[in-house]
């Protein structure tokens, strides 16, 4: 086996690392980027990246569903919520603010502002600590568990669609039905919660069929 061949065999791994980097960076940006619309679009990128990893892991059906559900429905729902409500409150900077008031809102006194900023910084530090601790513990556990080394893509006998279909409608039939009930409940709940009260308009039912309300409703349904 020549060096070139080794290089080629390394390609999927390389792709995996690239995708992983994209996912992690965009996930990081979701939490940090100033504008919330950008955060939502970074979320889309992260979702797409995860779908790519699914493909590398040989779960093509899941990759398709991932894009369909997360990009086509959930992300669109988020974007709709952000764009429809178009509130300063919702779209303004959120990062860098801790409990007790965000740093961007200027309180009365200078000392108070400084205190708020310190509190915010401490809060960020705390959040980072928690996240790092969690990741560390789980990684340690993974290392310790000695997971079997399985390489993908492994030769699989049947297409994943057949496998998933069979399992979903035999072994997991009850959870499947429960999931559909959960979705239905979420759908009804989301409509009830998000529908605007239109008493003052006197247009009743008609009024909440505008783009905004409809979009929110649709998001629920497609999900």
């Amino acid at each position, binding site marked *: 086996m020549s060096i070139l061949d080794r290089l080629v065999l390394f390609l999927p791994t390389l792709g995996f690392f690239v995708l992983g980097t994209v996912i992690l960076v965009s996930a990081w940006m979701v939490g940090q980027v100033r504008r919330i619309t950008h955060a939502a679009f970074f979320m889309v990128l992260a979702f797409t990246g995860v779908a790519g990893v699914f493909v590398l892991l040989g779960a093509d059906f899941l990759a398709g569903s991932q894009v369909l559900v997360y990009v086509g429905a959930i992300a669109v729902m988020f974007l709709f919520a952000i764009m429809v409500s*178009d509130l300063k409150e919702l779209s303004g900077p959120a990062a860098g603010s801790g409990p007790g008031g965000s740093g961007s809102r200027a309180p009365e006194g200078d000392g108070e502002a400084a205190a708020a900023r310190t509190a915010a910084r401490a809060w960020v530090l705390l959040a980072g600590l928690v996240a790092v601790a969690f990741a560390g513990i789980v990684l340690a556990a993974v290392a310790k568990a000695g997971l079997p080394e399985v390489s993908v893509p492994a030769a699989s006998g049947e297409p994943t669609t057949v496998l998933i279909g069979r399992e979903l409608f035999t072994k997991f039939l009850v959870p499947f039905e429960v999931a559909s009930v959960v979705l239905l409940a979420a759908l009804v709940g989301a409509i009830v919660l998000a529908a605007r009260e239109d008493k003052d*308009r006197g247009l009743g039912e008609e*009024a909440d069929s*505008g*783009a*905004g309300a409809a979009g929110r409703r649709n998001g629920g349904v497609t999900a």
Partner: protein
Amino acid sequence: MTITPEFRPAPGDLEEHEFLVNMGPQHPSTHGVLRVILRVDGERLVDAIPDIGFLHRCFEKVAEGWTYQQVVPLTDRLDYVSAMTNELAYVMAVEKLAGIEVPERAQWLRVLVAELQRIASHLVWFGTFALDLGATTPFLYAIREREHILDLFEALCGARLTYSYMRIGGVRGDLPPGFVGKTREFLKLMPSRLREYENLFMKNRIFENRTKGIGRVTAEEAVAYGASGPTLRGSGVDWDLRRDEPYAAYDRFEFGVPVGQSGDVYDRAVCRFKEMYESLKIIEQVLDGLPEGDVRAKVPRVLKPPAGDVYTRVESPRGEVGVYLVSDGGPKPYRVKWRAPSFAHLRLLPVMAKGHMVADIVAIIGSIDIILGEVDR
């Protein structure tokens, strides 16, 4: 809070979720240069405030500086889609003021061109209204059929849009050779084409859904706001100057006046559309019984009507065009006041638009068939 054209919203002026959108002056469906300030909540209109004046050309003031005869071509430029009826309203005012008898043939010719003009104008309305509702093809068809009328007018007076055909005391010239035959051809062609339009557009389900129940105006509101023409009749008020206060030779003809019921966009549109059939009937009667004779009374070259004032009105395709003319005995009018139907209808816009959607305001503007030339003057 009132919103004026100069209004800039300050924080707190508008409700949450609301924002202002400028529709026009550059917008494909504002029929000229109209600016409508839309206060919207998502796609729903909270208010629509028309802002006019982009096409103001000082017509009334300019007319004071010109002789009576010279004002005629100027009136063409007001409602440029229906120039003939403008001229008619104006020359009728001058004739009334100066006490001029108009020959019978001229009166009949006036009816003929006014009704041809009505069809041409309604065809433009039909096309642009369809365009407003997103259908491109009816526009081209309507313009294609309007071309027949424009050809007739071109042969009659040499122009296709600003005719300058009416003269004080009559009309400019008699019918050119071949006019009657060509008009009869048009009369034969047009009903089938109108039925095509019905199949293509007026009976289309999407059209009905888009227009029924939209921009509703009650009969009381329509009267109170000074609406006229199809906009008034769409609301169920049976009032047509041609029949109820006949001028020119209209009392010689049989024709129906389509009246709607609910006063929504659909009824207005149907009224306008059916008027085309009635106009065809009138034209046919004119051609059948056109009397011989002069087409222009003897009028002094420098016309000096006695001091006084008159008001005349005619039924233009859009509604009542009224002319208030004051003379001080000189060769030029002392004051010309133009009552434009589109202006009154534009005031109805906020009434009609409230509670509907952004897409509906386009349909509403289309249904009242405003021409900004006569709104701004």
